[in-house]
């Protein structure tokens, strides 16, 4: 598999389909898949705990065995196999609040490397939400609370000072 892909995000992507496809007849699939998706969202947003990961696994196994049809029974597969083979990625999201593949936007954290920065101010000019504070004399800094992780500053910086 492409190692630049975030496995948690991939599992979430597949699960999104099943949640939409669930016919809604049986409880595990109707409510369970929705709850799995909610937990995955929590993980990709860096808000999950190790306990959530455990809950996710238990829930996934129950849905596999208790759903009426193949759709519900296979819905947890992407989750269970990514947990099995890429557990460190899950852990990185949960413990370090980092997405190793840099896909999960909520976990991206951009900062300006003051050594590379030439204090040109292009980043600040291109930031759509005004998250970059500073001036050409003192240099620039990203306010994490305002930043929406759009990546515009990074793209516009000619000196690769933002990462």
């Amino acid at each position, binding site marked *: 598999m492409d190692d630049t892909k975030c496995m948690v995000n991939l599992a979430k992507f597949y699960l999104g389909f099943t*949640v*939409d*496809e*669930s*016919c*809604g*007849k*049986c*409880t*595990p699939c*109707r*409510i*369970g*898949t*929705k*709850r799995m998706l*909610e937990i995955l969202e929590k993980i990709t947003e860096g808000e999950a705990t190790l306990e959530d990961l455990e*809950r996710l696994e*238990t*829930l996934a196994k*129950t849905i*596999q*065995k*208790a*759903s*009426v049809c193949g759709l519900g*029974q296979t819905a947890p597969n992407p989750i269970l196999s990514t947990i099995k083979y890429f557990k460190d990625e899950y852990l990185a999201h949960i413990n370090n609040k980092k997405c190793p593949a840099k896909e999960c936007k909520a976990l991206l954290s951009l900062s300006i490397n003051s050594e590379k920065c030439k204090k040109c101010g292009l980043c600040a000019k291109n930031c759509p939400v005004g998250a970059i504070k500073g001036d050409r004399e003192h240099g620039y800094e990203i306010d994490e609370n305002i930043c929406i992780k759009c990546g515009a500053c990074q793209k516009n910086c000619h000196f690769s000072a933002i990462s």
Partner: protein
Amino acid sequence: MSDLVKLNIDGIDVEVPKGTTVLQAAKQINIDIPTLCYLKEINAIGDCRICIVEIEGRRGFVASCIQQVEEGMKVHTNTKNVVEARKIILDLILSNHNRDCLTCVRNGNCELQTLAMKFNVKGIEFEGAKTEHKIDDLSPSIVRDFSKCILCRRCVSTCKNVQKIGAIDCAQRGFESCISTVGNKSLNNVNCTFCGQCITACPVGALREKDSTDIVWEKLKDEDTFVVVQTAPAVRAALGEEFGMKIGTNVAGKMVTALKKLGFDKVFDTNTGADLTIMEEANEFVERFKNGGTLPMITSCSPGWVRFIEMNYPELLDHLSTCKSPHQMFGSILKSYYAEKEKIDPKKMFVVSVMPCVAKKFERQREEMKNGELDDVDAVITTRELARMIKQANIEFTQLEDSSFDDPMGEATGAGAIFGVTGGVMEAALRTAYETITGKELKEIDFESVRGKKGIKKATIKIGDADVKVAVAHGLSNARKIMDEIKEGKADYQFVEIMACPGGCIMGGGQPIRSSKERSEYDIRKLRADCLYDIDEKSTIRKSHESPVMKKLYKEYLEKPGSHKAHELLHTSYHKREKYDL
């Protein structure tokens, strides 16, 4: 080939007929498997997954309510895996449930609550988003609150398969699934008959009667209002259940005491209204029979049924008896004859009917159910609502002494009592029609052929020289069969009784709600019916036309059945009704 299947459940060998489900087989050896969506004879669709078990050799869990037994099967109903999975499934259901038990009508009688208790639920593990729903309270009879719905579909199966109405079905998909009507309209604007059978099928508080207790309390407190209550035959056969008494206990005496304690000025018996209905209906039948009127004549005392025919067979409305239902007749008499006699201003009178029925709430407010400006009946409360009022007033129901209904409208006949059960109206009417037509005494007064649970019962009764063919149908799917026969000209009956609810009013939509488990264990219909037949059997007078109350009423006021006055007060008319108002 043997028709018995041997299997092993939790280490116990058991032999059951082919076609038995694992759930039923387990029950035979007293192994209790929890259920939620299962409802005996009505809903076995395996969707809630609470009843899952493990079967050796199967990968996943299996729903025991739909899994049929197989030779040599080894079933485990209580392993750690099963118990944990059930707990998670229950947790998921609760996570999308409005867990407002304290203000819920089903608090204390809810299958979900019972399960939560049984599973020792201490918190919700999988809390998350909840589906959003509006409350539908536009109909006069039924309130639907889908924040309480667990999508068991017991209501859908009842409406679609038992009643064959199909007013409700599952809509949307996945997490957004919900029970809906055509165009997601209120039940008030679709083909619903207000029979209320969906309410008694619902395991939780998602479906309920429209509560009318507030207005009744208000009137009871108002010194200027003369508040009269009447109770339908079927109520006394079931009210006790709300207080833990055995199914089928006749609690008429305690009920009257309780109503007096609640502060009603007079407590009357709708059975007397039923006697009156028989007087009018038997007379109407004899008239039609003798004079070539529209036959078969069909009874009109079940408002769920009346709403059904108005929507589905408007071209056959001429067949419907013009008689109002017993409680409407009685209300009308209370506000005329009784008010005059007792010198009470009928405008200051408030008539409350305690009914086994939610359709009566709709019937009460029909334009036709009036005498001049005055409604015949001012409020209808169900058996369940009366039980709540009694509890609210801190009355220890089971400890009450008996008392009797108030005179002069008190003593009703046995014929009035059996109105509450399928076949009862027919039986009561035949007792009177027979003697009216022949002028001879009817010796054998129990018409066994119209009793019992068969959906459609037919009989030929010799009245004088004539053979009168009658049919009795209960449940709207059976009503439809009879109506199709009539429509196609294939019916040779002269008299037909139809009740909307399977079993008749004893199983009405306003009666105490019994859990799926109880419905599997007891024949509730039979126990309640036996109670009414017992009342009839023990009555000194068992024919409506022999009732002293009737004799007096006709002598002093109505003159004779079918008189001008009787028509004014006791008869009504019907009209075509659109099924959908979209």
